[in-house]
Structure formats: structure tokens, C-alpha cells
């Protein structure tokens, strides 16, 4: 069953025809050219496909494209319209990635956390990022980048930068 959906993608109205079985992640990547959400496990376990739906992070591999009709989808492309966000800059400063596959999801999850809770402690940061798996860094540089951004870090990353 083909159906046309209209939704806000990174503040722009987009309309596209999709099949009922089309997954949001695949539509974003293959039909709309949005490549920061990655296909990892494709089963909702790894977090690399994370996008924001009406301001809340979701696993886009577990959302039907049809479900986002009339809603607002934000990906990393949408956050960095004016260049890198301060959070991305601290990720850069702290070497918070190696292969980079998990990074878009990590940045979105951390962004949601800081929007909700501007001064999270380490435990809260760990908890908020627990749905995003990283196989390179061991997580410490990622957590330190978030702590640095909110002014709780040791500020070492920038000097090393």
C-alpha cells in the first residue's frame, strides 16, 4: 500500500511516497539523502540510527515512515545547520570517536539529555547514553566530552586538542 506522507525534516517540509512497510531509517537514508543516522543492528539495540521525533530521541529503525506524518524529525544534519554544535566541538576536542559510526546517535542522545537536564552528573550521563553502543572508545572520552561541555570536566581535552 503506497501512501504519501508529509513531515518536517530538519525544519523543512518534505513530502514523499512510501510503502506501508518502509522504515523511517531507510527512507531517510535512501530516499531523502540523510546519512547521519546509521544502520547498525537494525533491531533497536545499538542506537546508531537515533533521530529526534518531536524533540525526543527514538530508534529510527523501529519507526514506520508512515508514523511520522505531520511530525518533526531532526537528525544531526538539522542540529548543525550553522556548523558544528558546541557538543560536537567537544567530541572533537576529546577524541570521542574513532570510527565515528556511533557518533551521530551519541550526539543526539547527549543533546536530549542536556536539553532536559542542563547539569547531569556522571551517572546520569552514563544512563542517558546507555542505549548507544560504541565499540571503539570505551565510552570514557564520550562521557568526558559531555562533562566538559556542561562545565563539570577537567578541561583537559581542549589543551590536548
Amino acid at each position, binding site marked *: 500500500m503506497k*501512501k504519501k506522507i508529509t513531515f518536517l525534516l530538519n525544519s523543512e517540509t518534505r513530502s514523499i511516497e512510501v510503502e*506501508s512497510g518502509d522504515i523511517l531509517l531507510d527512507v531517510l537514508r535512501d530516499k531523502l539523502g540523510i546519512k547521519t543516522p546509521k544502520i547498525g543492528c537494525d533491531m533497536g539495540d545499538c542506537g546508531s540510527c537515533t533521530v529526534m521525533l518531536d524533540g525526543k*530521541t527514538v530508534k529510527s529503525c523501529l519507526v*514506520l515512515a508512515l508514523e511520522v506524518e505531520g511530525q518533526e524529525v531532526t537528525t544531526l544534519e538539522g542540529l548543525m545547520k550553522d556548523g558544528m554544535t558546541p557538543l560536537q566541538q567537544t567530541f572533537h576536542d576529546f577524541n570521542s570517536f574513532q570510527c565515528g559510526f556511533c557518533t551521530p546517535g551519541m550526539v543526539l*542522545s547527549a543533546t*536530549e539529555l542536556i536539553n532536559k537536564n542542563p547539569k547531569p552528573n556522571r551517572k546520569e550521563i552514563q544512563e*542517558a547514553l546507555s*542505549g*548507544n553502543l560504541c565499540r571503539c572508545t570505551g565510552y570514557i572520552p564520550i562521557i568526558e566530552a559531555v562533562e566538559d561541555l556542561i562545565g563539570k570536566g577537567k578541561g583537559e581535552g581542549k589543551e590536548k586538542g
Partner: protein
Amino acid sequence: MSILQDFDYFKPTTIEFAIDLISNNKNATILAGGTDLIVNLKEGTATPEIVVDIKSLKDLKKIEFKDNCLIIGALVTFTDLLESVVIKEKFPLVWEVSKTVASVGIRNRATMVGNICSAVPCLDSGPLLCVYEADVNVRSSKGKRKIPIKDWFLGNKKTALKHGELVTHISIPFPNQKTGGCYVRLGRYCGEDLAQVNVALLAFANNAYRIAFGAVAPTPLRANKIESFLNGKKINDHLIEQAKELIPDEISPITDIRATKEYRMHMAKVMFERGIKTAVERLNGDGLEYGESLV
């Protein structure tokens, strides 16, 4: 990966139309958060002809506390539960359970009603609703029906829901006296991992206890023998040791990819001991804060 099954998608705006759709089609599936359903569609374990997305039914998105009863609507996500003041203040055990469900990205989407409709043996909401003796409220073209949680779970992924019925909400009676609760969940890592064993406990001011285990049988279950052994007694170390000996009579864990039955049995005892102590401490106002992990 897209879904191979071809289905029709509906997003009704009235509950009556939603019920019409599911009663007039033998092979209809309800979609709320979709965090289980989409996986099942991708894997081909769900093959519906129509999918009825109920997210436009705003009446189902309410958390309400009135007449000493908590209503959790079918569209209430675990994030909604965590952000609710009434949950945090009056039902801290519901809050504690919600906090252990997967991760933020899942909790933003997944609903408690969806959790009990999926009815996998390791579900987080199962032991919780068992100790609160909650009811599942369903509606069909024939009217409304209230199903006690003890009659809801029939087996692995099987519930008492009949064709044409839609779960509208869960109702949880507020305990008639002071309680302390505790939820202990064992997983391999934080995040999306499913529970290997879970146990929910409620200790009442009159030394009554309610205990329910999950992931150690096809359905969540109340530990009736342990409850009757402990009821009316003040908890002490000796009693806990005796109660632990009853656990093998209550549960029947299996070996699977996540843990062996021996490990599950061992950990059920450890978790019961820590959980009951914490529940009683919380009842007395000096336990760990809700949300602190005991394993």
C-alpha cells in the same frame, strides 16, 4: 531492512473506529510504540493484514490518580511515567521499574500497556503489576471488561486478550496502608538488554508482603508460598534464609542465550534477599533511594 509483509496501515482518530477495524479483520495488529512490533514485523514473526496505529487516540495518553486508583493509559510511555509527579510520589516502585526499561530512546516510545501485550517472560512491568494486583481494562464492540493481572498472562507471549479487544488502560489500586517497594533486575549490561531474572517486592506496614518474579517461568508469577510463610512476621536474617529455601518450589527457570537455569536460580535467591531487605528499609524510611540498582 524493510518489512516484507504487505499490510494496510490505519490511524483512527476515534476509539470506536479502532475497535471496528480490529473486530472486522481477523488478522489485525495494534501499533502503539512499536518497539516490539516493528522487530516482529521485520523478523516475520508478526504477519498482520492491517496495522492499526492508535497514537491519535489522545484519551489513551493519560496518567490519572483518582478515587485511590492510578490509571495508566495505553499510550503512556515509560518516559511519561518517569516524568510524572504522581508516579514519583505515590507509586515510586512504578517509577523504579520504568527507569530500568531499556534506554531513553526506547522509553520515549515504548508503553507499559504494549509491554504487557507483548507478554514476553522477562517483561519488566509483569512482576510490578502482579505485586500491585493491577487490572487490565479492555474494550470491544460488546463493551468493557476488567481482567485481573493474575489472569492476564497465559503463557510466553500469550495473554487473555480476545479478538476484537483493545486494551485502554491499566488500573492500579493505591495500597491501603504504607508500603515500601523494591524492583531488582539482573541484566548483562545497562541499555537494551533483557532481564535474566527480575523480582518486584512490596512490604506493607502490617508485615504483609507481596513478591513476584519474572524471567524464571513462561509468565511472571507471584511467590505465594514465600508470601504466606512471611506474612505477619517481621523480617530478619533467619527468616530470609528460610524463605530463600522456598524459591526453588516457586520458580522454574530455563537455560537460554542470556543465562543458565542454575545461575538464574542462584541469582533469584540473592536478588530476593537484597530486595526484601531494601523494601522493608524503604518502608521504614531509611532505605536506598528508589532507582538505585542492587545488582
